[in-house]
């Protein structure tokens, strides 16, 4: 099977889905095309891919493969380069991306959204969920700028993302308290004295609601000391965040200051630690790509078959 490893869209996305070490086990049985410069963002040279037995190729060739693999979903022009009937593996979140679905349907693509691949216990296989929490927490300490062991950190939520943040804060010797549902309605009591407030609450996104009721209102900003930090780990759309004044931010401008309080809500925290997260994905992805390449999609393990969306033959998400 011809496998294409596509580059992500620079300059802001530096990661690459598969590293040479993990591709070695594929190249003796399959042709692996790697897009020129795909690994440069995490310090991997084209030559290193060549040594691992890959072929360095231009974008058009890579997207012309039977199986195309990358981290983030391709843009419209890239989708047009895919050949009909090809398999695309990438993060897709099709439910939130009707445009992408339409393009992939037109191109007759078999989609394997990475976020759909689950192990038999229902846990995502390709993920950096805890990393999201810990990278975000690290960045919040950086914004705060003082010795983390003097920080009073309060964390809303206790899921997997929160776990990463909790662990990082505890390891940096901060005082850490977890806030749960009972506390959310009385945030005015819990904000005073907090240096870093972390939102890791997983609230379902309700498209038909124009503005969700926030837990922490704009008026409560003045309860925090100037220079305090509000960190959003779950990338809520504007007007849907539990913190009223929070808006999604991007790698180019990861934070903004409002009433003397830092706000940061990066869309895609893992991108901030490109090298480590990229390696993690590569280790998680290699066995999956190998299974599809060796056995074909129909004989791949159940975890993969369950994730497939046959956009080429009528299946739809929306």
């Amino acid at each position, binding site marked *: 099977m011809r496998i294409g490893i596509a580059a992500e869209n620079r300059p802001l996305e530096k990661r690459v889905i598969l590293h040479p070490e993990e591709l070695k086990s594929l190249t003796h049985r399959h042709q692996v095309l790697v897009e020129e410069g795909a690994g440069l963002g995490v310090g991997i040279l084209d030559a290193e891919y060549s040594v691992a037995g890959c072929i360095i190729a231009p974008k058009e060739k890579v997207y012309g493969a039977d199986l195309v693999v990358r981290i983030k979903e391709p843009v419209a022009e890239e989708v047009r380069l895919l050949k009909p009937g090809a398999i695309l593996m990438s993060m897709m979140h099709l439910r939130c991306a009707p445009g992408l679905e339409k393009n992939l349907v037109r191109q007759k693509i078999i989609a394997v959204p990475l976020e759909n691949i689950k192990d*038999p*216990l229902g846990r995502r296989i390709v993920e950096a969920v805890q990393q999201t929490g810990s990278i975000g927490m690290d960045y919040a300490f950086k914004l705060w700028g003082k010795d983390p*062991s003097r920080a009073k950190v309060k964390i809303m939520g*206790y899921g997997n993302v929160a*776990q990463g943040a*909790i*662990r990082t*804060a*505890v*390891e940096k*010797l*901060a*005082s*850490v*308290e*977890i806030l*749960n*549902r*009972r506390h959310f309605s009385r945030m005015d009591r819990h904000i005073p004295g907090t240096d870093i407030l972390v939102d890791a609450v997983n609230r379902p996104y309700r498209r038909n609601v124009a503005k969700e009721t926030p837990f922490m209102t704009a008026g409560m900003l003045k309860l925090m000391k100037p220079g305090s930090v509000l960190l959003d780990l779950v990338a809520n759309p504007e007007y849907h965040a539990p913190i009223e004044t929070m808006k999604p931010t991007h790698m180019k401008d990861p934070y903004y200051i409002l009433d003397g309080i830092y706000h940061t809500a990066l869309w895609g925290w893992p991108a901030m630690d490109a090298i480590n997260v990229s390696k*993690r994905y590569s*280790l*998680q992805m*290699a*066995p999956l790509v190998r299974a599809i390449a060796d056995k074909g999609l129909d004989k791949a393990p159940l975890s993969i078959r369950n994730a497939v969306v046959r956009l080429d033959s009528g299946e739809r998400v929306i």
Partner: protein
Amino acid sequence: MKIGLALDDRRKEKRVALRPEELGELLKKNQLYVERGAGLGVGITDAEYRQAGAHVVSKAHAYACPLVVKLREPNETELKMMRPGSTLFSMLHLNNRLNLARLLQRYRINSIAMEKIKDPLGERIIEDLHEVGYWGMMKGLELWGRNPSKATVKIMGCGRIAFGAIQAASRKQTRVILLNKREINEMYKHLPGTDILVDGLTWPAELRGKIYLVTRRMLRLMRPGAALIGLVSNPAGKYPIETMRPTTLSDISYKMNGVIHAACWGWSGLDPVNVTRRYSIQIAPVLSDIVKSAPDHLPEYIKQAMLEAKP
């Protein structure tokens, strides 16, 4: 290959390593010999194993298979029933159990330690750490006995076990505070006002019985009726809490100086059915990999967990 599925000692353990649901793939090319009554602790009858294609046999017969699967480590009587050169697949923790390591050598039994089976990222594949923390915390709240949302819970440690406890306590809407490395060394400051103190620390062997974070004298700093919960067991039975000793599911807690103590060996046994499901789903694919390959061609991740008996 003939695989023996052994019964775990019912007095301490209700769970079983494999359920009939997960046997499909395995039984295509292998035979499974299930010890009589192996699943009864979680409501799986012998008939259900038979229906799935396994044979139900005596203890001696199950242990005579070239590969024996069991959740907890076997005792010496059970090891003696195994044949020299056969393989045992179970939780072993040999670093903490030097005697077991010696017995395996004496009876020339190869072993594959379930706790050492890791995925490419180095995470344990066969584990119930989260469940241990979750059920330990739930029981702790129950032993404390008042409305959980009124409790102040402080947690030492932030590993996977501790996270189970954080999740349980937060679901019950208690106030949860984490204690970091500096804070656990100044417990006299943090015990006042604590209703439930949770120990989720992996206490290193060299500190066991030598250093205590919570001493006997500190107990009076806690509120009356407060509870101390030990989540992480170790074979030495020595905890960072001086007055803590191991308890069991049948005798889960005791009181000392008015403070409830509980450090159950195997907290997740409180939810045996779900934990068995979890283990079975985790164990079956690894077992398939073990029997698929010749002993000297095992996949790397299994080799790393294997200890061969010297001939």
